[in-house]
């Protein structure tokens, strides 16, 4: 196995393009190293992107947020400005694994690992995040929900990797929230999760995005659930309608982590609770 630590995105893309065997990009390595130890993958090439300076940048400006692909998840929580603008994205990133794991892992890696249960992904989708993808042919911007195709599968080409995740500028009375259900308090993986992003106008929900995790092969955007919230103050009827829409959008599996029945029920519970948190954060009052 070759281990390379290029210092430019161009060199990294070239390395990936020239490898004919199994190649992996390494950022924090908290998924890749585990898979290698388990024997689930035996790479011929590992390209560490942490030595590319620009990938370690976290920039929070009025125009938006730029999270370099090698920024450890724990750094998101260290930024008061980011926590203020995107509390849901931050809480999702800061639920991954444990403090120690967050010291290494990245949201870009969390996305590229393409697990249906990834914590940061529903929150990023709800936030309208875009991934800056770089390859030998240059850069492109792609909506985060277009990156993951299915469990373990992404839309990235062989020579491509994510350089940064960018979040849009924030409108006035807006907030997001993320909740997941795990049997353990930490070091666990979401059985089901929900991210909600709301913008209020005069105390009424003006726009909303509802995204569920771990209930289908990829994170699920639930427009009907968002619609149920828009134009309301999250009254009980609106919430009940949203819960029904969430349950209808679930297409989970029965596995060691939870049953279809359980995931479907709890998806609605998480979404309702997350919606109330986001509403309150945005300054809403019932």
């Amino acid at each position, binding site marked *: 196995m070759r281990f390379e630590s290029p210092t430019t995105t161009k060199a990294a893309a070239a390395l990936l393009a020239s490898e004919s065997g199994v190649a992996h990009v390494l950022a924090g390595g908290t998924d890749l190293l585990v898979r290698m130890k388990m024997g689930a993958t035996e790479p011929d090439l590992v390209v560490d992107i942490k030595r590319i300076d620009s990938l370690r940048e976290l920039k929070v400006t009025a125009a938006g947020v730029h999270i370099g692909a090698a920024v450890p998840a724990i750094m998101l929580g260290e930024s008061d400005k980011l926590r203020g603008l995107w509390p849901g994205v931050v809480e999702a990133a800061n639920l991954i694994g444990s403090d120690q794991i967050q010291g290494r892992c990245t949201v870009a890696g969390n996305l590229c690992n393409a697990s249906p249960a990834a914590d940061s992904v529903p929150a990023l989708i709800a936030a309208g995040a875009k991934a800056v993808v770089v390859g030998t042919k240059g850069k492109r911007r792609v909506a985060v929900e277009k990156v993951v195709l299915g469990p373990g599968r992404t839309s990235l080409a062989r020579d491509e990797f994510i350089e940064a995740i960018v979040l849009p500028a924030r409108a006035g009375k807006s907030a997001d929230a993320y909740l997941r259900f795990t049997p353990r308090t*930490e070091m666990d993986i979401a059985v089901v999760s929900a991210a909600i992003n709301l913008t209020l106008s005069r105390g009424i929900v003006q726009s909303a995005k509802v995204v569920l995790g771990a209930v289908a092969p990829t994170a699920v955007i639930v427009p009907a659930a968002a619609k149920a919230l828009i134009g309301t103050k999250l009254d009980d009827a609106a919430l009940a309608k949203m819960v029904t829409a969430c349950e209808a959008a679930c297409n989970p599996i029965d596995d060691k982590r939870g049953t279809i029945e359980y995931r479907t029920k709890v998806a609605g519970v998480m979404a309702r609770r997350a919606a109330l948190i986001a509403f309150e954060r945005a300054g809403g009052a019932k």
Partner: protein
Amino acid sequence: MPYETDYTNQGFSKVGTRVNRPDGVDKVTGRAKYGADANAAGQLVGRILRSPHAHALITKIDTSKAEKLPGVKAVLTGKDFPDLTGGDRGMMNILENCMARGRALYDGHAVAAVAAIDADTANEALKLIKVTYKQLPHVTDVDEAMKPSAPIIHDWVRTTGVTPAPTTASNVAQRTEFGHGDIDAGFAQADVIIEKSFKTEQTHQGYIEPHACLATLGPDGSGELWVTTQGHFTFRNVCASLLGLDVAKLRVTASEIGGGFGGKTHVWTEPVALQLSRRANRPVKLVMSRDEVFKATGPTSSTSVDVKIGAKRNGKITAASAELRYQSGAFPGMWAMLGAMTSFACYDLKNVKSVGFDVLVNRPKVAAYRAPSAPMAAFAVESVVDMVAAELGMDAVEFRIKNAAKKGTKASYGPVYGPIGIGPTLEAVKNHPHMKRKLGKNQGRGVACGFWFNFGGQTCTDLNIGVDGSVNLTVGTVDVGGSRASLALIAAEELGIDYEQVRVTIGDTNSLGHNDTTEGSRGTFSSGMAAIFAARDAVEVLKQRAAATWGIPVEQVVWEAGEARAKGKQNNNLPPLSLKEIAAKSPRTGGPIAGHNEVVADGAGVSFASHMCDVEVDPETGATKILRYTVVQDAGKAIHPDYVEGQFQGGAAQGIGWALNEEYVYGDDGRLQNAGFLDYRIPVCSDLPFIDTQILEIPNPNHPYGVRGVGETSIVPPLAAIGNAVSNAVGVRMDHVPMSPPRILKAIEAAQG
């Protein structure tokens, strides 16, 4: 020299203090050497190929390609382990578990092994071994395995304990029955009878350190084994027997141990590592992966239990019965028997009967797990005890106190109790501030009791005094829970010297006589007893040296406060001689000063505990949070209170994990779905509250200091205590452990209709 083992109620100056543990610095600095930390020049890496099938005939194993791979030094399959057992089926079961013999009996059963120059080569060699399987029908559920239609695991198994003796094979290896009185008559007198069935899923001990060893076995039949184990003497005997070695020629050294909880009382890969070493004529290091630990080493039984208890309106139990079905994995065990023996041990019952069925299934061989089998029986019995109390309208603690066993009670499993702690632990629960905490919405409280036998066994100890007066105590029981600190306190107490002057060493198998495995909470009980006697042996020598120095008869010398004092008016001009002074002169007064003791430490005192816990259940997700947890247990005498409390807390923590989340999940294909710590959920720190403890000291009459084992009982009540608390919180009786969020939510929804 034989010594009196009776309790003497002596005063203590060292015992009972909270000194620092001697192994602490090594453990926090990383200097401590665990199973995987030993290396030898020229060592090979051992790896094991395991069956992916729950049950399959191995029709062919082709190892030729693996053998030809450069760097591979040995390849073994079942045929490389000749049957040297002389017809001992128990030994053959151990051997067959270490390496399949023509048939794979569970997902993870070893079918071949390699030793190679490095891990990559060993892994490559495993891939080159071609095994041809013919899959057979399998069964993993204990109740399914008892049905006549179930696939038979072993055609040689005939159910023992039934008359007439059966002539056909069965998955029920053993039926056992305990009890006394007439249960039918007892139930006839009852005003209230509750009968209910319960299930518990399979759990693993979850020790953080995987099994690991470094094995060296030469063509002369002399060998060395460095291994993480609870019983290096037992490992030596078993390995020597399976491989045809002289016991004395195999030296086994116990490494530091990163948890055992019973799982390291059995050999798993060690005979294979030794055989690989013999074949390759090089040392072989074999370290299991976590996946292998889950799939192929010692989980405890999954169970199915029926309990029936009847009581009078006045709160007196008139009869109690239980049928306990425990699976023992692919080899016969005695786990249901232990469940049947412990099930009603907390109570004073006129009419009681418990019947155990040990059942074979296509799962890994069940091993001991901390008070093995008792927690599941307690879950079922203590749940029904709560239900009966509720039906009678009695407080559950008062109901237990009214029926608690006491001195003179004939235990349900046979013996008559001496002084015991069940009543006092329940009184302590009743008066504990925990019981006065106000419960909020969705919260519930549960109380449960637990019992464990404890064990003593063969023990051999040496105490050697250095010329500077420092003391080394060598014991043969492995330090799994802080016993070195406790044993040093005991030696310091007997000799009258500082704790810091004593070092305790775990001797290898060639430095002491046989010591039984550190199991049954025997470490501090039995090695403590031997340490007392070895120290007293050394004191005799010290007194003789002092007498000789003074030129007076030894009868005129006493040992007090760490020094020899001459008795009588005629000797009052003789200043005392300290241990240090006598030791310094020892080269000229007769040579080294030592004490020795070998003992079969009988009389391990039974142990009882009562636990209470408060939980809050999220009614929308079924998630349970443990709000408060308190352990009250009789320790006999707490030699080192910190480590006694640590045992109480550790047992409760493991029990909480078991009660709420831990379980082996098998697919329909008989394969284990969650062989890792991500999906086999032991609790993390943030899942647990501070676990409060209260030590009671009701002396064991059969130990000079009154010590009882403390390590195991603490895991017995938690399943039931939490089961009762959750049931009280949600208003539905929980009957299936673990009470995972999906199970709780389903139970709530079922009750709501």
